């Protein structure tokens, strides 16, 4: 997982203190454990008593949680199953869909976080250090930023065939300018630090200065920013699905399950309730983890990010 490896990278440079602080911070603990459980759920989805999440059975549509029935398998044999979370309007098992749905949500969250940070980091480092490029890059970023993220994502979604890749792309593109700005602001302040200047005066070439002296300073803020982006991406994925421009509905995601189930909310709340709870808990955990990381890794971030 991206957060862990980067955190340990940062920890390696200041071995005892950071690690100890991370271990001591209850937010990090709580967020990390919940997230780990979610991750485990996603990875082990096939072994968690689930059935094929896209198995349609029109006879058993809209069953309330706890309904039991016989499931016909491919080979014709029948096994009894219990729909812990009921079935949806196509008779699919909501429990299986929610469990499998965690895969997509987490993939979207992590992929968007990693991609936007990697891309933003490169652009930010370069534009923060090469002055003539800075103006051009920042104007482009301004333009990108001027379009509200969700609108841009909606518009981008209509650009290509809906799919996981498209959703990730549509969510991560509007995030780039924010990362670039963060990185750039760090670069601009770090390049004035005496230790960077002394690296200049001992003849360290620019790429090495960026990697050795500037890059490490961006790691902690970026990890923190990354958790927020991750939470935001999970949320936006759900919103896009809700608006009908997200990942194709037959792929179970929490947003899709809710979008499909929302019209029956008053009669069969389980379609909205269970994925909603999973979604909220996951985002909550990521946010709390982010807060904890921020407090430990970079207290100054409180001001930059809010």
């Amino acid at each position, binding site marked *: 997982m991206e957060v862990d490896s980067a955190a340990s990278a940062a920890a390696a440079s200041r071995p005892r203190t950071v690690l100890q602080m991370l271990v001591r911070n209850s937010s990090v603990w709580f967020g990390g454990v919940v997230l780990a459980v979610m991750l485990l759920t996603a990875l082990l989805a096939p072994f968690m008593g689930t059935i094929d999440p896209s198995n349609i059975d029109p006879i058993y549509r809209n069953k309330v949680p706890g309904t039991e029935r016989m499931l016909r398998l491919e080979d014709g044999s029948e096994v009894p199953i219990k729909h812990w979370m009921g079935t949806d309007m196509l008779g699919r098992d909501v429990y299986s869909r929610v469990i499998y749905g965690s895969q997509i949500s987490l993939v979207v969250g992590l992929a968007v976080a990693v991609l936007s940070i990697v891309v933003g980091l490169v652009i930010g480092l370069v534009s923060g250090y090469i002055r003539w490029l800075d103006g051009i890059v920042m104007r482009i970023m301004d333009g990108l930023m001027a379009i509200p993220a969700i609108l841009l994502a*909606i518009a981008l979604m209509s650009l290509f065939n809906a799919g996981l890749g498209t959703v990730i792309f549509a969510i991560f593109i509007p995030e780039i300018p924010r990362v670039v700005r963060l990185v750039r602001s760090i670069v601009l302040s770090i390049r004035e630090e005496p230790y960077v200047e002394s690296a200049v005066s001992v003849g360290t070439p620019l790429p090495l200065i960026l990697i050795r002296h500037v890059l490490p300073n961006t790691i902690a803020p970026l990890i923190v920013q990354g958790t927020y982006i991750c939470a935001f991406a999970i949320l936006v994925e759900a919103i896009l699905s809700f608006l009908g421009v997200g990942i194709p509905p037959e792929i179970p995601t929490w947003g899709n399950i809710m979008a499909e189930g929302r019209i029956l909310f008053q009669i069969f709340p389980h379609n909205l309730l269970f994925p909603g709870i999973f979604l909220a808990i996951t985002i909550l955990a990521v946010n709390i983890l982010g807060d904890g990381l921020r407090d430990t890794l970079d207290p100054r971030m409180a001001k930059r990010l809010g």
Partner: protein
Amino acid sequence: MLYFLIRRILATIPVLGMVALFVFFMLRLTPGDPAAILAGENGEPHQIEGIREALGLNKPILTQLTIWLGNILQGDLGESFFFNKKVTELIAMRVEATLSLAIVTLIITLAVAIPLGVLAAYKHGSWIDRLVMGFSVLGFSVPVFVLGYFLIFILSVQLKWFPVQGYKELADGFWTFLHHLILPSLTLSVIYIALIARMTRASVIEVLNEDYIRTAYAKGLSNKVVLMRHALRNAAVPIVTITGIGIALLIGGVVVTESVFNIPGLGRLTVDAVLGRDYPTIQALILVFSLVYVFINLLIDLSYTLLDPRIRY
């Protein structure tokens, strides 16, 4: 100051130009065909072709671009493919609803978030602080549509306090207007309150560590005076900044909220236009939203001069 204004306004031109080009080409590359959609459920191939011709969609892309840009320079954002109306007219019809939603949301937000944030900062580390922070993390975590449905279910359907849906214009009477707006605004403001309360808390805490706060205490001022007169005032710049950033967020939230509460605003117009591939409307809307964003940022920059005498342009 004037120079600053002029320079800033000139600087928006390339930004908007980029947005315009970006949006234009993005839309032309989409697989959707507005003509096919316009032809309707039973539209036949020859009808679609006729419509495509009538809309000028047959022309080369660059010609279309030239025409569009030429019209924009003359202040003409074009005509909606669907509604046989000027896009500007469509937007004008929707502005009030979105603006009202945004303003009421903003009022609720500031009225709740700032006191909460200041309180949390003052009681830094106490259970009140933890409660406020907990709420704000939670506020970030519940999707706005889930919240919207639950609020409608409880407050409108069960308790019948508020109407289920719809928007009433200000001209229909203020209380009717407000009555219809409170629930959507409340829904929308939750995430925003979370954001601003957090920011307020963080910046007030930071300000409370400043030397002049110590000076203020050294003058014998009471906690309340120090907090309100010295701390909050100095924390205002980051709070205003985040409020501005939040407006981009608000626009995103508006899209969802308007769908859930059936408010005929710009957000819903955008979704409809995107789904219907109504190119002129999408283009115009994104331009308008970008313009608003740029304009708000300008206002925020200007407000800094009021909040902080050290900032001069």
